[in-house]
């Protein structure tokens, strides 16, 4: 990149760098368009007629433009029910789970108690256990307790907190000096109050990001709902979308399938656009620090 000529004339080097930047940008832009192209195609296809999608000639622009499929999807009771059920799982899990996770993270990071390291290590080890190992026993457990007729199998495990969030928040708190705890103790501050009025505000940002990621995780989850939920009326959104795919592919109603998929993607995409900076930051932390 830097040959002798460049070093001799910094003006020439600058120009060359600029040209290089332009080339790199164009290449990256081509790649980026290729990455989102299938999604763009999906959006276009959702506005097409069935005949246009199935025609031999490839086309991207809907002709004629039909938005009726969106209304059709939105008027399907299964779809609305799917959204409702997903939200019914999200709300309690995120509210209670955020509380239990952050409380545990505070305890692991700042309090001294017996068996701390052993418990923490046990938690960490579970991150390596494949879901396949625990899904059959969990299924049996929920069946025996008679919970597969509702959403509880999807809600209950989340209420107890999330190991990866505990881990992340604990890391986040290591930068907070221990003096905070000591000062609070001297002031006669109780431990719960210490969590609530000192440490919770300190980890607010990190917790917020983790909750958003958790929201997306629940929103996009498919495996657990298919195994644990047996009643149609409690199917979550992803299960409904999958069912649409199976049902409407028979008569090739691809515009409808695409419209339903597009609708299911909107909430997570919106969240990502708004909180991008934080999401990427937290991802980078877990990746670079290991």
């Amino acid at each position, binding site marked *: 990149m830097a040959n002798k000529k460049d070093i001799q004339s910094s003006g020439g080097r600058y120009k060359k760098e600029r040209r290089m930047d332009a080339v790199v940008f164009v290449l990256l832009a081509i790649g980026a368009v290729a990455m989102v192209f299938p999604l763009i195609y999906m959006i276009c296809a959702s506005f097409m007629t069935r005949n246009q999608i199935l025609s031999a000639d490839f086309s991207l622009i809907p002709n004629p433009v039909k938005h009726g499929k969106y209304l059709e999807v939105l008027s399907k009771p299964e779809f609305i029910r799917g959204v409702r059920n997903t939200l019914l799982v999200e709300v309690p899990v995120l509210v209670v789970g955020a509380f239990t996770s952050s409380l545990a993270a505070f*305890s692991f990071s700042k309090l001294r108690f017996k068996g701390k390291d052993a418990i923490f290590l046990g938690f960490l080890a579970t991150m390596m256990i494949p879901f396949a190992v625990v899904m059959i026993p969990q299924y049996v457990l929920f069946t025996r307790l008679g919970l597969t007729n509702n959403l509880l199998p999807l809600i209950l495990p989340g209420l107890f907190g999330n190991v990866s969030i505990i881990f992340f928040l604990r890391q986040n708190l290591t930068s907070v000096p221990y003096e905070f705890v000591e000062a609070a103790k001297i002031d006669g501050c109780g431990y719960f109050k210490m969590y609530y009025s000192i440490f919770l505000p300190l980890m607010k940002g990190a917790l917020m990001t983790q909750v958003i990621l958790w929201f997306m995780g629940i929103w996009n989850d498919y*495996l657990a709902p298919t195994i644990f939920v047996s009643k149609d009326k409690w199917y979550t959104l992803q299960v409904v979308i999958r069912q649409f795919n199976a049902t409407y592919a028979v008569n090739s109603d691809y515009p409808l399938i695409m419209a339903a998929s597009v609708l299911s993607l909107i909430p997570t995409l919106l969240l990502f656009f708004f909180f991008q900076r934080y999401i990427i930051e937290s991802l980078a932390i877990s990746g*670079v620090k290991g």
Partner: protein
Amino acid sequence: MSKRNEKYKMSTAARKENRYGLAFVTPPFIGFCLFMAFPIVFAFIASLTKWNGMNNMLDNFVGLRNYIKLFTDEKFWKVLLNTIIYMIGIPCGMILGVVIALGMNRKIRGIKVLRTMYYIPVISSLVAVSILWAWVFNYDYGLFNSIIKAVSGVHGPNWLGDEFWVKVSMIIFMTWKGLGTAIILYLSGLQSIPRDYYEAAKIDGASGWTLFKHITWPLVSPVTFYLLITGIIGGFQVFVEIVVMVPNGGLNYSAATVVFYLYEKAFTNNQMGYASAMAFVLAIIIFIVTAINFVGQNKWVKTID
């Protein structure tokens, strides 16, 4: 350290802290016992029986027979091989990821928009994008074959219907889905490399590929390691994209993964004991591969100090 001694030494304040500390981790600990520890023990016992979900587990104790059967089960070896083949996507994602991240590690305006575009597949629902890609790979009308036909005039391969191409399809899909993560992580890895490293090497006459090989690549090795570990753990658990794109497991089961086969055994054939044994073998494989990676990392993973 004797425990009893310690107990005596604990002051009232320390005991209070001990109590609260434990209380605060109790909810996740209960969750851990109920949804992890108990299921693991249960699954292990189940794996030693011919349990079908309804019959009495302990009456159908068969010892290690499920495990022995598994090792002679051709279908199991096939799905294990398929699962491993899909992992070709891991290095593909790494190479593309580091190249793109290098491009993005320049001060160019508008690069953040591109970064977002690369990341969109990562946050998209796996079911929705699998439905979409099933369509992209469609033999008659799919995006790929339409483009191939428009460009070359010949009909493209039967992506999801062919034993070979179905694997190529899945590798393409998985690389596409995960590329954004690799880019973001490599980019933040690149940004943490001090500039003077390069300056010093340039003075020594190094350039281009040499700089990459001796400075950049070793210094982003923690990211490579992270991607490798998470890629392998996730790769052994691939399920949803297969079930959506190739619901029958592909021609001659050529697309099925371990979890796909396991799911079928457990919930379609009610061979819960056998499926539990398979799940255990899977967990052991993941554990061993991860452990090997952790031991081996000293050889190639560098840190900036």
